C-alpha cells in the first residue's frame, strides 16, 4: 500500500505536470479567478519580486513551440527558437491575456525582440530593464540599484499602484520560500537521484515560473518536506534490508548545463539510458532559484545584490572564469560523472562559452557531451543512442 504522503506527493507533482501542459490556460483561469494583472517576463533576470509586490502575476514566457508563421515576417531563421517562438505566440493571439511584458536586457536577440514586440504588440504595456552587462564593479552595482528603483516606479505607474517597501518585503519572502524549497528538492535529488524522476523535478521548477507564487511556495515546501521524509524512511528501510535487496546498478550521475531547457523528455531519456540528472546550471533550473534575497535591508538593494552574487548567465560578465569555476565546483559537489551541455541553436552567449567550459571540465577529468537543439529534440532513437553511448562511456 502506498502511504498517504506518497499519494499526496504524487498528486502535487501531477498538478505541476498538468499546468505545464497548458501554462497559458492555467494563467488565463488564474487571472479570471483572482483578478490579478499578468506580466510576461523573459529570463531569470526579470525582477519578479517587484512585479509581485505590485500585485501582479509574473509569468515567464518560453514560446509554445507552435509552427512559426507570423514571426517569420519579423525575425530571420537564424534567430533562436525561444525568441521566435515567443513572438509567434503573441502575434497569434495566444498571449492576449497579458497586461504587460518586461524585457530584461540579456542577449542581442532578446534586445531586438523587445523592440519588435514594442512596435507590433499593442494593448500590452512594455517595459525594458536594461541591466548592466558587467556585474563586478561598484558602478555596475549602483546602476543596477538605480535601475530597479526606476523599474519599481515605472511598473507602479503602468499598473496604477504604489509599491511600498512592505509590499516588496512580502514579495521577497515569497520568492525566498520558493527558492529555498527548490534548493531543498534539488539537494535531495542530488543525494538520492531515485527519489524523484527528472521530469518531475523539471515540472516542479517550471511550475514555479507559472503558478500563483504564494500557492506554489506552499506546494514546493510540502513537496520538499515529503521528499525529505521519504528519503529518511528509505534510508532506514535500506539499512534494515541491507544485503537482501536486489542490486540495480546506480544510475550515472549527470549535470546539465546550458540555457533554457523546455524539453522534459530529455530527463526521461537520460534515465532510460542509465543516467540521472543530479544538478544543473540552466536558466530554467538552478540559475533561476539560487541565492536568497536578504530580507533585512533595503528591499531594492537586496534584490540587486542577489543578481550580482548569483551564478552568472553567459550574457553577463563577472570575471573571466566565473562560469567554469562554478561548473567544475558543481560537478564536484554533486559528484557528477559527466556533464551534458544542452544548448539552443543560434544562442550566441551559450555557444561562446561552450568551448571554454568544456575545456575546464576536461581538465577536471569530467567527460561531456554536447546536445544542440533547434526547437524540437532530435528523433527519439537517435538521442537515445547518443545518451546510451555517453552513459556507458563515463565512469
Amino acid at each position: 500500500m502506498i502511504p498517504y504522503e506518497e499519494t499526496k506527493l504524487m498528486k502535487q507533482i501531477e498538478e505541476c505536470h498538468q499546468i505545464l501542459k497548458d501554462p497559458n490556460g492555467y494563467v488565463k483561469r488564474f487571472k479570471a479567478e483572482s483578478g490579478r494583472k499578468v506580466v510576461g517576463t523573459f529570463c531569470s533576470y526579470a525582477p519578479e519580486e517587484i512585479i509581485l509586490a505590485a500585485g501582479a502575476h509574473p509569468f515567464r514566457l518560453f514560446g509554445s513551440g507552435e509552427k512559426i508563421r507570423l514571426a517569420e515576417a519579423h525575425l530571420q531563421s537564424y534567430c533562436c527558437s525561444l525568441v521566435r517562438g515567443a513572438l509567434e505566440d503573441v502575434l497569434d493571439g495566444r498571449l492576449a491575456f497579458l497586461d504587460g511584458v518586461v524585457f530584461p536586457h540579456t542577449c542581442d536577440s532578446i534586445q531586438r525582440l523587445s523592440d519588435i514586440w514594442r512596435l507590433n504588440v499593442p494593448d500590452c504595456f512594455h517595459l525594458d530593464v536594461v541591466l548592466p552587462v558587467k556585474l563586478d564593479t561598484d558602478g555596475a552595482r549602483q546602476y543596477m540599484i538605480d535601475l530597479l528603483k526606476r523599474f519599481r516606479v515605472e511598473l507602479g505607474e503602468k499598473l496604477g499602484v504604489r509599491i511600498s517597501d512592505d509590499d516588496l518585503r512580502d514579495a521577497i519572502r515569497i520568492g525566498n520560500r520558493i527558492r529555498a524549497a527548490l534548493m531543498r528538492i534539488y539537494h535531495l535529488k542530488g543525494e538520492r537521484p531515485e527519489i524523484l524522476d527528472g521530469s518531475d523535478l523539471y515540472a516542479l521548477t517550471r511550475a514555479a515560473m507559472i503558478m500563483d507564487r504564494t500557492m506554489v511556495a506552499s506546494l514546493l515546501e510540502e513537496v520538499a518536506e515529503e521528499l525529505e521524509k521519504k528519503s529518511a524512511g528509505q534510508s532506514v528501510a535500506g539499512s534494515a534490508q541491507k544485503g537482501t535487496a536486489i542490486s540495480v546498478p546506480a544510475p550515472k550521475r549527470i549535470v546539465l548545463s546550458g540555457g533554457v531547457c523546455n524539453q522534459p523528455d530529455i530527463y526521461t531519456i537520460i534515465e532510460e539510458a542509465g543516467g540521472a540528472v543530479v544538478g544543473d546550471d540552466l536558466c530554467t533550473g538552478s540559475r533561476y532559484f539560487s541565492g536568497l534575497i536578504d530580507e533585512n535591508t533595503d528591499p531594492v538593494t537586496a534584490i540587486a545584490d542577489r543578481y550580482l552574487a548569483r551564478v552568472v548567465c553567459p550574457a553577463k560578465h563577472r570575471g573571466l572564469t566565473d562560469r567554469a569555476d562554478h561548473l567544475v565546483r558543481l560537478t564536484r559537489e554533486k559528484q557528477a560523472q559527466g556533464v551534458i551541455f544542452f544548448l539552443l541553436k543560434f544562442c550566441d552567449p551559450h555557444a561562446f562559452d561552450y568551448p571554454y567550459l568544456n575545456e575546464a571540465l576536461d581538465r577536471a577529468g569530467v567527460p561531456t557531451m554536447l546536445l544542440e537543439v533547434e526547437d524540437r529534440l532530435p528523433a527519439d532513437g537517435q538521442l537515445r543512442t547518443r545518451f546510451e553511448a555517453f552513459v556507458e562511456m563515463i565512469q
Partner: protein
Amino acid sequence: MAEKDEAKEKRKIKTVAKMKEIMTAYYIDAKTAVQTGKKVAWITSGGPVEPLIAMDVIPVYPENHGAMVGASKMGADLCEKAEAMGYSSDLCSYARADIACAPVNGGPIGGLPRPDMLVCCNNICGTVLKWYEVQARFFKVPLFILDTPVCHTGYSEEAKRYVKGQIGEYIAFLEKVCGKRFDYDRIKEVGKLSVQGQRLWQEILDTAMNRPAPISAFDAFFHLALIVTLRGTGQTVDYYKMLLAEMQERVAEGIGAVPSEKYRLLWDNLPVWYRTKWLSEKFASHDACLVADTYTSAWCGALRYVDENDFLGSMAECHARIYLNIGVDEMAMQVMEMADKYDVDGIVMHSNRSCKPYSFGQYDIQRIIREQKGLPTLMIEADMVDERSFSEGQIETRIDAFIEVLKGKNQAMG
C-alpha cells in the same frame, strides 16, 4: 558596352595608394610594438580609442582584421577552424575568424600583434563581450569593459551616470596597465582631432548627395579604415582632407563612382567583404550606385552628441547612442533621414547571419520604410566573412528583379 580604359582610369580614386601606405605603416608599427616598447590594445570598433592614442598605446581592431580576412577570402577556412575548436557555425564570423587566427598567427597578415590589454565596448553587440572574454583568457591580459546600456527608447539618467562613471574607470585602467599618469591635456588635442576626423568623414560621405555621386558605399567601406583605426590622429585628418578634396574635384568635373548613374541606392548592414567587387560591378552593370550606407556613417553618427570642448565628458553619450545601440524604430528613422538626404530610389538590406543586432529588426525597418516612404527594398541573405553563406545565383536573380522594379517605378513616374 565595355568602358574605355581612359574613362575607367579617370574614375579611380587617387588617394587609395596613400591609404594603403598609411595602413601598411600602421600595421608594421603595431607588429613591431614589442621591439619599440609600445603597448598594444585590442579594441572594438565602437570603443573609445582616443584615450589610447593619448596614452601612446597602439590600438588594434580585431573587427578590421575580420574584414581583412573576409576581403582576402580566407573566411570560410578560418571559420571552419573555429568550428573545429568548438565554436558554433552560427556565431559572428568576425569573432570566429579572429579566434581561429590567434593561436596559429593565421590570416592575411599572419595574425594580429599580441595585445597588452583588451578594451571592449558593447555598444555594437553582446558578441564582442564574449569574444573579448575568449581572447582575454587566451592571451592572459587585462580586459576593460565599457558597458553602454542599450537605448531602446532613450538614454536614461541612470544609464548616463553609469556610463560616465566608467570613463573614469577606463582611465584608471589605462594608468595601471601603462604604468603612467593619464595626460589630460593631450586628450583634449586628440579629442579635437577625432572630432575633426569625424566631421571630415561626414563631409566625404555627404559628397554622395551630388548626382552623380563621386563616391559609393563600396569606396566608403575601404576608406573607412582610418576613422575606425586611427581616429584622433593628425594623419587621419590629413588623409581625409585629401580624400575630400578629390571628391570635390570629382563633383566639379561630374565624375561619378558609377559611369552612368541612374539609380541611387542605400546599403544597410555590414559589407559582404569577400564579394564587394562582384556586388559593386553587379550594381554598376545596372547603372545603380550605392550612394550611402548605414554602416560607414556609424562612425560620424555620434557627432550630434559630441562636445568638442569637453571631449571626455561627452564621450560617454557618444558611445552609448550609436546606431546599433538604439531601438529599431529609431534606426528606421535614421535610415529614412538618410534616404531623403541622399535622395535614393531604393534600399538594399544585407541580412547578415553573423550580426544579430544589426539584422534582427530589418524586416520591421523594411516595413516602416515601405509604409512611410513607399521605397522599394531588397533583402540579400549572406554573411560578411563566411563565404559559405553566399549563394551567387540566388542573389544575382534578386538584384536583377529588384532593378526591374525600380525601372517600372521610373517609367510609371516618367
